[in-house]
């Protein structure tokens, strides 16, 4: 049982979540493309959480992602998220984009490998911008120089292993990649001043998630009991055929909920 639970979680975080993330990205891309064409894509300052706001591609490490609004753990399941109290990428000011380092497709797994001068291409409702990486920053490194007047800055944020053991499985500390573009789009006024804790780096959601989790676990329990009861009446094959997809669906859902309780950058 333990093996099943732990194994399933591991599998979903590392592989199955990637499938879900791919699917979400496809849907987001279609949506965002439509919005760009129709001119209805958001330009800030306040965007509904979960809406796509930009596409991001980093050729050097092969990242092509749609960035959505919001950086809470749940928001990052579908792809990189934009920190809500910063300007949108490409606008005048500094923008921050968070992405997962090892689970759910791990879009930002390799941002630590970027070097000075690498390109980051961003497309938003206001147009396309090409950023040049200034450098990779970890705890203790000095912040980059003050932003030149009229420039736009982009900070990619993700997790990274602090020790050499299991580097792809223990993204415990935060890594930042600073990039800059010389020209910037205008920024609309009225940006929120602060974001709640769950949306900060390594933030975790709690509170609101608990009832949902209880419900999911309850469902799983009921399913288990149901399967046991059904096995006494029907043949094993029938029970397995009927129950397996339901169990997988509920387990999948439950893991998604559990993910929201875990740090957002892992």
């Amino acid at each position, binding site marked *: *049982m*333990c*093996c099943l639970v*732990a*194994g399933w*979680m*591991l599998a979903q*975080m*590392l592989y199955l979540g990637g499938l879900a993330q791919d699917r979400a990205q496809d849907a987001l891309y279609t949506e965002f493309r439509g919005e760009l064409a129709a001119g209805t894509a958001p330009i800030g300052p306040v965007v509904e959480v979960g809406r796509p706001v930009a596409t991001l591609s980093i050729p050097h490490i092969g990242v092509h992602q749609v960035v959505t609004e919001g950086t809470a753990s749940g928001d990052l399941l579908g792809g990189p998220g934009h*920190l809500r*109290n*910063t*300007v949108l990428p490409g606008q*005048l*000011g*500094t*923008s*921050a984009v968070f992405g997962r380092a*090892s*689970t759910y497709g791990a879009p930002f797994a390799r941002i630590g490998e970027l070097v000075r001068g690498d390109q980051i291409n961003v497309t938003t409702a206001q147009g396309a911008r090409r950023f040049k990486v200034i450098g990779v*920053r*970890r*705890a*203790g*490194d*000095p*912040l*980059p*120089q*003050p932003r030149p*007047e009229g420039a*736009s*800055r982009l*900070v990619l*944020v993700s*997790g990274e*292993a*602090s020790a050499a053991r*299991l580097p792809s*499985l*223990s*993204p*415990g*500390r*935060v890594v*930042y990649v*600073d990039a800059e573009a010389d020209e910037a789009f205008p*920024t609309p006024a009225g*940006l929120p*001043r*602060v974001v709640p*804790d769950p949306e*900060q*780096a*390594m933030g*975790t959601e709690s509170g609101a998630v608990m009832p949902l989790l209880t419900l999911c676990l309850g469902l799983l329990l009921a399913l288990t009991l149901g399967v046991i009861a059904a096995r006494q009446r029907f043949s094993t094959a029938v029970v397995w055929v009927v129950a397996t997809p339901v169990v997988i669906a509920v387990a999948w859902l439950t893991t998604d909920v559990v993910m929201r309780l*875990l*740090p957002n*950058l*892992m």
Partner: protein
Amino acid sequence: MKQRMRLLATALLGVTVTLPAAVGIGGTATAAADGDAPAYSQTKHLDRTISVQGQEIEIDSRDMTVTVDRTTQLRGRERVNISWTGAHPTGGRSSSPFGEKGLLQEYPVVILQCRGLDDPSLAPDKQLAPETCWTSSRAQRTQVADDSEAAWRHDKYASDAQRAQKFGLDPIPAECNDVATFSTRITPFRAANGTVYASCTSETMPPEAAVGAAFPPAEQAAFSDLEGNGHTKFEVRSDVENESLGCNDTVACSIVVIPIQGISCLDDDAACSRGGQFEAGSNNFSSQGVDLTASPTLWWSESNWRNRFSIPITFGLPPDACTVLDDRAPTGFYGSELMSQASLQWSPSFCLDKKRFKFQHNKMADAAGFTLAENGGGAAAFVSSKHTVKGTDPMAYAPTAVTGFSIGYVIDRPGNAGEFTDLKLNARLVAKLLTQSYLGSELGRGHPGMSANPVGINLDPEFQKLNPGLDTITREAAATLLSLSESSDVVQSLTEYIAQDRSAMEWVKGKADPWGMKVNPSYRKIKLPVAEWPLLDDYVPTTNDECRQQNPTPYFTQLAAPVNSIRKIAEAILDAWPNVQTRCDRSAVTDPWKIGRVDRQGVGTRFMFGVVSMGDAERLGLDQASLATRSGYVAPTTAGLTKALRLAEPSKEGDEPFTLDMAQMVRKNAYPGTMIVYTAARTANLPEEDAAKVAQFIEVSTTEGQREGYGNGELPPGYVPIKKAGVTAPLWKQAQAVAKEIGEQSGATSTDTGGGDGGGTGDGGAVDGDGAGAGTSGASDPGPGSVSEVGDNGTGDEPADQGDGEDEKSTDDRAGGKKVKDEEQELVAMPPTTEVSSPVAERILPLLLLVALISAIGANLVRLRHLRRSRG
């Protein structure tokens, strides 16, 4: 018997004379130029005669004495103490003496503020008259009555014209809708600019008397007790508050006290010679009609008006005097609002002296002011505690004023017995108010975890034990302490007071008090002290109320509704206008509901608290609570503050703030709200010009600025003077030393980039990073430093960004003008990235893997053993 009465009267006179001194914080007593003598005291003989069958009979005769504690250098909204003896006892007292609400009384003492002086030798437009006396309602100026009821038409002292059927305006304007057959008497109001307001309907009143005016009525019809004594606080208005009345430092004004004595009658007229319906000392809660002849409505009738006591008053310079009189650019000092009353009086003494500079105090959060002073945005800061230096330049602190916070309040005793003036609070009661643990109303009852708590503090047995005899009406304002919304050393000090008290902290941590009251779960285990009080409760009550359904707002936050300045709190208490935001309102039935501030509290049932500065409280005449210490309750008096100063320990360096330990103050029975305000400035890299100004300011303010008084450059009450000798000597010495240090700019910068140029620019760089951080949330944002800091850096709105940029440039120029104008970006020392890490993120995946592997192996082992056993 008569002799005894007189003895009693003189004794009471003595009491009332010394009362203002006792009410004031010690300072008042010595501030008065000639010892304890009141600023104004006069005795007059009053009488009233009526006519019975053509024969004149004197029915009343008395000597009345009026004393006023302060008449010079007043400021707008300041309250003066007026007391009197020997008046006619008041009957049918109304609960509120103010404005129109005070009219239904008999034999009160009417107190008005009038423009002009009572001096027949002056030009007519400089003299006072009923036409220049301010009243806020039509009823106080215009009487229309049936001829048989028009008591004023039988006034013995009035002229024939005044006794005519119509008097006041000729012809009576059409908008007055005058009834030709009735007697009409109009006292129009003549405004300072010459406009005459007919004042016969509410539309023809001056604009300041409009319905829902910014300030509540100040004029009163105060009561005299059974012995004929009385006391009240009268609020004066300058032309800032009341332009039509127009009193200021150049236009002379008077307070006019008119004892209502009843009309002396010329002939046998029933309406005129009535003696009043109410017994002396009785109340008129139900607003029944009174005998017009003895009512304050007829204050303008000659019989009453001739008995007036005219007290000439002078106003101090208006708050904007320096802006008007001095066209030099001001030098800004930023920070603590505790200084505001002192700076109000100090600034003219700087700007009107060409040898000094133009001093300007900009009030803001202490931390923000300190940051400005540190990074070059301002010359100096006013702070009252030690702040962390974020840049590279050293800062020095010069003690400038000794004052503090207090809990101001306005509470009425039940049964029209006047104001309650002896409030005692302890740390746990303050904690209960701050943590929003009173329910406020039945709406709060549904809050989980505290449904058994009292609705308001006046229903809390702990409070009732300390302050017996108050009412038990439930009101939302009694559930809250109006406090500051922004970061401030005052909030820090107030929460330190809670934090040092064991029983209060145990209660905050979740232990119920002896009466079963529990802390609001949203605030349980909150870490104290804090500089900024957080609003943590998010309980939204479920009701059927349409307005609340349309505006779902956290209820306890609406009750607390903190404001951003201490002055606003003081004025809210002065007006008895709680900032509770629970009033539902809509202009029409089809409009959506809006939530707004509740109404002003009615006099008689006022009950509200707020955190105020001692300077404001003294200026506006607010009552201040005594706070619990180890053995007793200490009021914010000079004695209480001085005791605290004895405990202040100077820093080792000699230019840092004194240590004023809250626990020690409480142990030694000093006033816990004592705070020392410092002028903090850089001792290196401050431009020479600014350095000289700051040094001059410290020198002047700690010498001539510490003389007590109300004049320019003097120290108002609410502050303890810092003197060369006595308990304040160490403060004085440090101030002089720091003034010298700042003037010389000899401090060593802690820069490690080396070279004067580098030091200068390094400073500019710090502006950009830290300044932006402080601007958003008081520099206390614990979030993942690097992201939000970098974010803020650019997200600041454009003007601010540009301002920073300019600042940077000017700093560079000051640093020697050596800046090379090439395109290459100079290197700026940036703070390091803050560490953010999550052990959960680091360990969960390996852990899951481990668990999966071990349990897989374990399961297989178990199965293997099973198989072997079944075979065996």
